[in-house]
């Protein structure tokens, strides 16, 4: 089903609609078919104008079995269209889904336009002349039948999908043939069946000129890391341990060895981060990718990187927790962990992506800060951004920032002494002297270091100084990042402040609130530590500040603590993104209060 969703998205992207997707699947690889927890869904929202979210209420639901109908019907807009595979509505499947009576035969779907299509049997019928496939394989092609039908219904271009099928199943031409036939049969069914009276035309959206592609958050993150390696001139070293929803990045980077990328699948999360830090000591761009349950194990490495003052990018593709939680579902509840989840005073810059395509820029920004300030940096994404996709205006490579650095090449003073902790006056960054550089042999470690020399020191005043220097270095990054931008066309009294993947839902909600004649301002943080330098001034300039988060108020806690502003929260932690409608309601209630 995820494959089918991806293809429809590709057709839609190539056609030129703006779009946003929300894949929603279980953590189990082959969850029992037909059971409620086993339902794998793919939501796509597309339009002839720019859109910000995968949509609150789909207009069309394709349900391949009763369980899929039961799980998703509640999301569908009243009056929406339901296309069901009647072949799957057996007594047994109805029972598995918990239906006492067949919803196709009682009145429970009376609010919707129902198209009952025997998808499985029509697929099998269409494939009866294909040699070399089992009946089970033929039945499996029904998703392509459904894709063909939907492609007809929305006038999608089909050449891309036909080419895709040939390439994807090149090793099994009979499967390629079966899927192609099923796809075409679905299209033809739409065209010839009188069941579907109309097909829809959604004109291309008016987007900024340029070359576009569709991209998911994890792919954008991968490309961003590759770009950071190129832009910095540092070879990329990824240490990772497989974990949902971050494994894609490891897998994709493992395919980028021609970019000089070294990927190391470690024995555990600890070794993954340790190896990345070891590579950074040697002059690589060290990266480790994980999700919350892996990030907790990396805390000691991040602490070491803080005191070694070496660049390290730590990617947290957040998922619902605590502990194992809901591995495939998004959440924003790791913010306080990455801020404070280490022993002692251990400041780490935090960068957060807001959109799937935005993961590209966020990765470059995390690398820029890590390299320039010789510090570990947390890069936050989440399961929604990771798997969701959208059109992306491909950037001009020549216009990407220069994030190159220089390694130390010579001793610090005329006495030929190298001082590994002698800082740059402006950035407070220390020199990065890599092994292999003659004359700069030095030792660094987790023990407290004397200012400048880096020698072990237990001196009380020196420790206080070093704690403050490390804090000042990270705080000083505020001067080197853009100010917080506020979107406030009407001079509102209420500000909605967000971070991360709530960007789309907040933006869509604010549009609706403004359409209703109310005034609301929005601002979105891409840097969580340090905050942009005008953040305090912005939040203090509004009478009311609303902070929607998919956690119980973590950014709100930071904003209140740092700026003494009585911000209020809108918090739901359901393992799914906010709907624009619920944020519209929350904002409206606050504006009207």
């Amino acid at each position: 089903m995820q494959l089918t969703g991806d293809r429809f998205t590709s057709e839609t992207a190539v056609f030129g609609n703006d779009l946003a997707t929300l894949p929603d699947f279980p953590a189990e690889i082959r969850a029992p078919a037909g059971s409620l927890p086993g339902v794998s869904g793919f939501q796509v929202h597309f339009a002839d104008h720019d859109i910000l979210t995968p949509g609150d209420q789909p207009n069309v639901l394709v349900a391949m079995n009763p369980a899929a109908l039961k799980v998703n019907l509640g999301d569908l807009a009243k009056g929406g269209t339901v296309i069901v595979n009647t072949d799957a509505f057996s007594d047994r499947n109805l029972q598995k889904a918990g239906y006492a009576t067949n919803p196709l035969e009682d009145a429970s779907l009376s609010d919707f336009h129902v198209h009952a299509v025997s998808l499985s049997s029509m697929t099998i019928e269409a494939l009866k002349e294909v040699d070399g496939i089992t009946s089970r394989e033929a039945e499996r092609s029904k998703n392509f039948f459904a894709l063909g039908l939907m492609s007809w219904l929305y006038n999608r271009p089909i050449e891309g999908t036909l080419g895709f099928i040939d390439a994807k199943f090149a090793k099994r031409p009979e499967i390629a043939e079966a899927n192609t036939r099923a796809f075409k049969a679905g299209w033809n069914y739409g065209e010839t069946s009188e069941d579907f009276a109309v097909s829809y035309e959604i004109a291309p959206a008016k987007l900024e000129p340029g070359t576009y592609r569709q991209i998911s958050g994890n792919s954008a993150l991968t490309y961003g890391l590759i770009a950071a390696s190129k832009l910095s001139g540092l070879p990329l070293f990824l240490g990772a341990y497989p974990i949902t929803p971050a494994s894609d990045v490891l897998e994709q980077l493992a395919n980028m060895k021609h970019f000089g990328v070294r990927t190391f699948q470690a024995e555990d999360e600890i070794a993954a981060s340790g190896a990345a830090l070891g590579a950074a000591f040697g002059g690589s761009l060290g990266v480790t990718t994980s999700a919350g349950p892996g990030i907790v194990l990396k805390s000691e490495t991040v602490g070491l990187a803080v005191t070694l003052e070496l660049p390290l990018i730590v990617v947290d593709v957040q998922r619902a927790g605590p502990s194992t939680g809901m591995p495939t579902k998004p959440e924003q509840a790791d913010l306080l962990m990455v801020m404070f989840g280490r022993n002692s005073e251990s400041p780490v810059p935090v960068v957060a992506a807001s959109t799937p395509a935005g993961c590209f820029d966020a990765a470059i920004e995390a690398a820029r800060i890590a390299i320039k300030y010789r510090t570990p940096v947390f890069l936050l994404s989440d399961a929604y951004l990771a798997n969701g996709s959208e059109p992306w205006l491909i950037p001009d490579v020549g216009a990407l920032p220069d994030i190159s650095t220089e390694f130390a090449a010579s001793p610090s003073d005329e006495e030929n002494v190298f001082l590994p902790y002698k800082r740059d006056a402006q950035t407070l960054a220390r020199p990065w002297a890599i092994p292999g550089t003659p004359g700069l042999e030095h030792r660094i470690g987790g023990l407290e270091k004397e200012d400048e020399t880096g020698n072990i020191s237990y001196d009380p005043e020196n420790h206080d100084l070093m704690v403050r220097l490390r804090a000042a270095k990270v705080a000083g990054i505020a001067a080197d990042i853009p100010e917080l931008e506020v979107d406030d066309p009407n001079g509102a009294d209420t500000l909605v402040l967000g971070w991360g993947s709530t960007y789309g839902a907040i933006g869509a909600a604010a549009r609706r609130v403004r359409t209703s004649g109310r005034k609301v301002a929005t601002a979105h943080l891409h840097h969580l530590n340090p905050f942009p330098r005008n953040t305090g001034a912005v939040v203090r300039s509004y009478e009311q500040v609303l902070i929607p988060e998919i956690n119980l108020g973590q950014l709100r806690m930071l904003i209140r603590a740092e700026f003494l502003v009585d911000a209020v929260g809108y918090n739901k932690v359901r393992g799914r993104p906010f709907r624009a409608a619920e944020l519209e309601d929350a904002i409206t209630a606050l504006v009207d209060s």
Partner: protein
Amino acid sequence: MSKGNGLTQLGAKDFKSDQEVRWCPGCGDYAILNVIQSFMPELGLTRERIVFVSGIGCAARLPYYMQTYGMHSIHGRAPAIATGLAVSRPDLSVWVVTGDGDALSIGGNHLIHSLRRNVNLKILLFNNKIYGLTKGQYSPTSELGKVTKSTPMGSLDHPFNPLSVAIGAEASFVARAIDTDKKGLTEVLGAAARHRGSAFVEILQNCNIYNDGAFDFVREEKGNRIYLESRAPIRFGAESEKGVVQDADGSARVVDLAEAGEDGLLVHDAAQREPSLAFALSRITYETDGAVPLGVFRSVERPVYDDLMSQQLEDARERSGEGNLEALLHSGDTWIVRTD
């Protein structure tokens, strides 16, 4: 340093850093440090090409005293950190210094995985059978029943035999030496350095504060040292009056030469591919046989992780050409939106 012929000849003093050595007076670590510093010139490398990485513990302070590059890292994690450094910088000589707690307790996982991967690391495990830096708790190599501050009624866990662990973890090079045995330790370090891949060396080290005399049976009583020599029958003792034989079940044991006869002795071969011989020798201990094998137990060639990774990078470039960012960003389906 200069030999006057334009070449630079480094000596032991060139590898001493300006930091005061802070181990307890009488600690076996001093002897090991001296041997390592004396050995370093034999590597034939300039100092900037050498890196010592350590975890936490008394032994882990060693990098601070070496005038090379060095990192004193996190408890148990040195093999992982050194792996990242070694595979990304094949031009360096990377040494890991660890202890029995660091390598076999908190860092056991990283140790076995670095050995099985055969990363080009030289791992020196200073085994004093005690936790020294935390002031005297039993370690994973302490004997069963060890009475320490944390085990007033005696320890309950069966100890690890470090060499058996390493051999079981597919180590391609395994050796043992004694802190005060300068000749034996130097030879082992040389063999480890020449070995391409992971080299694991256990160094029996006396902690004179918390576990004094733990290795006196072999440190002081030299007749109990079994020096292994490849392709030679294993004989030892003050008068070479003892030897090692292998029984039908594959195990090895110490015998009187008079009993077995010269021809009955086991002939050592560190290059034997099957690890069973090295493993059998690792099971000979003072407790079982009253003697301790020293030297190189196992040294076999096996593909090295670092080399394999570098090769994949080369192969990928050959296949796909040098990575092009512009092309990557435009890969897959693209479409153009034009100005109206």
